[in-house]
């Protein structure tokens, strides 16, 4: 079932040396290592990007001392965090307390496996790709709940409970807005969804309902990643640091990295589903398939920037406003939108280039 298509060469080279089973295990380990390394570093650079973008929004300059234009700033921060003591609270539930950061970071990294970076760079192309993404992205909240619960701290507890409320509510919208697009494509497999978009990106094909679905997805995706204006889980001015108040050192860094990787994942899903993933606009570089990674990352970064733009523009919502937005607005709109999309597909009103 697992299709490791990244490099034929390495596969052939390895099969010359060992048996079939050993080759697939070695390949899986290799790919896991590559993904871990790449995304640990990518997460660090997203943190840096966030800080620079925030600075520009606030007419500041931002970190620009460590390395050229501050490029090594977050590396230095990570190394500093590695050297820090791992503290804990008394009477904390030690097992769950230590387990929580791994839940969060592993669920974030697992979701990356199904994202197609380009045609040949797609670690785990299962036929239920979107379903897998929705399922995996909801595991992360267990880590947050565990962390908040086991810290034996009121603020952490409140933050974790808010996170539970928020994620359970907004998961519906994320799922439904993606299902709206599945109505057009008729498949959950991400590689086929991208193939389908060779006749025009889904946001063009589905026009009005697709744009509505995209807006709903971005709003609820921002809420899923617990970022401002939906950052009631952390809410610095209310809860200290929320669910990770009691974490220090590398465990804190895991939570922090997971937040940024989740932001990348939400943007990557949006880029894949709505904006054609690694397809170039109007197929201008179709002859050079290596540029797929570039187009994919460019689209993702634009959406990441959009989420940062949200963060530095909108004030934080109250809990009741958050729930009103989801249950009274996004969810009904989404349900109507699915019907609208179904009618559109039934009457063949989609735009196919």
């Amino acid at each position: 079932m697992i299709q490791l298509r990244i490099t034929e060469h390495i596969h052939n080279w390895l099969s010359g040396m060992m048996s079939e089973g050993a080759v697939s295990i070695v390949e899986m380990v290799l790919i896991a290592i590559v993904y871990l390394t790449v995304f640990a570093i990518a997460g660090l650079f997203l943190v840096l990007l966030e800080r620079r973008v925030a600075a520009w929004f606030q007419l500041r300059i931002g970190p620009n001392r460590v390395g050229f234009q501050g490029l090594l700033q977050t590396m230095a921060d990570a190394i500093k965090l590695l050297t820090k003591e791992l503290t804990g609270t008394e009477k904390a539930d030690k097992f769950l307390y230590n387990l929580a950061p791994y839940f969060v970071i592993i669920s974030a990294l697992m979701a990356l496996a199904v994202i197609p970076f380009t045609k040949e760079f797609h670690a785990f192309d299962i036929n239920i790709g979107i379903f897998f993404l929705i399922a995996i992205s909801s595991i992360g909240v267990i880590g947050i709940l565990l962390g908040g619960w086991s810290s034996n701290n009121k603020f952490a507890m409140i933050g974790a409970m808010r996170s539970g409320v928020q994620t359970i509510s907004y998961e519906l919208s994320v799922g439904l807005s993606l299902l709206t697009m599945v109505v057009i494509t008729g498949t959950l497999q991400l590689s086929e969804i991208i193939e389908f978009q060779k006749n025009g990106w889904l946001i063009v094909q589905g026009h009005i309902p697709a744009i509505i679905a995209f807006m709903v997805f971005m709003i609820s995706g921002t809420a899923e990643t617990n970022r401002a204006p939906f950052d009631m889980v952390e809410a610095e001015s209310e809860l200290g640091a929320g669910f990770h108040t009691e974490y220090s050192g590398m465990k804190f860094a895991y939570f922090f990295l997971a937040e940024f990787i989740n932001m990348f994942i939400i943007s990557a899903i949006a880029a894949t589903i709505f904006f054609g993933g690694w397809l170039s606009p109007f197929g201008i570089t179709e002859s050079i398939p290596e540029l797929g990674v570039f187009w994919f990352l460019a689209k993702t970064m634009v959406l990441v920037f959009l989420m940062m733009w949200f963060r530095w523009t909108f004030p934080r919502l109250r809990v009741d406003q958050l729930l009103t937005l989801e249950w009274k607005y996004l969810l009904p709109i989404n349900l109507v939108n699915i019907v609208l999309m179904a009618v559109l597909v039934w009457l063949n009103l989609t735009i196919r280039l």
Partner: protein
Amino acid sequence: MSYFSDIYQGIKTLLTGMSVTGKYFVNSRKGAITQQYPDNRDTLKMFERFRGEVIMPHTEDNEHRCTGCQKCEIACPNGTIEIIWDRGIDEETGKKKKKIDQFVYHLSMCTMCGLCIDVCPTDAIKWGQNFENSVYDRSALTRVLNKPGSKLMAGVED
């Protein structure tokens, strides 16, 4: 149906907010207000009302405007200013006259309240713009503001 107008108003106000911050983002290169301090030391100019330290301006002829009236010393709430004065002979009239010997200013005690500058009748002391006052020995923070050999500017007392 306020439901749909609420949605419309919500989206509209959100986009208004985003356009405001977007403008700031686009223009941030021109308008960054951060001063990169140690780098711009040569061009750094503090603003006019900045309270760095108390100074006593001297003219080119080494003349200051301090008459030694000690109003600043009385006004100072924590004894930062200490005026050591003397009686000298006025050259024109031949009378005995009060003049300052040393205007001692303890920067380490100064709270930059500005009462001495407000109270000075002859504008002899002013706010300086220098703020790099860290030293290894705190006795370096006790300063004599009038330069050696300086004298009162003519006509200040009239």
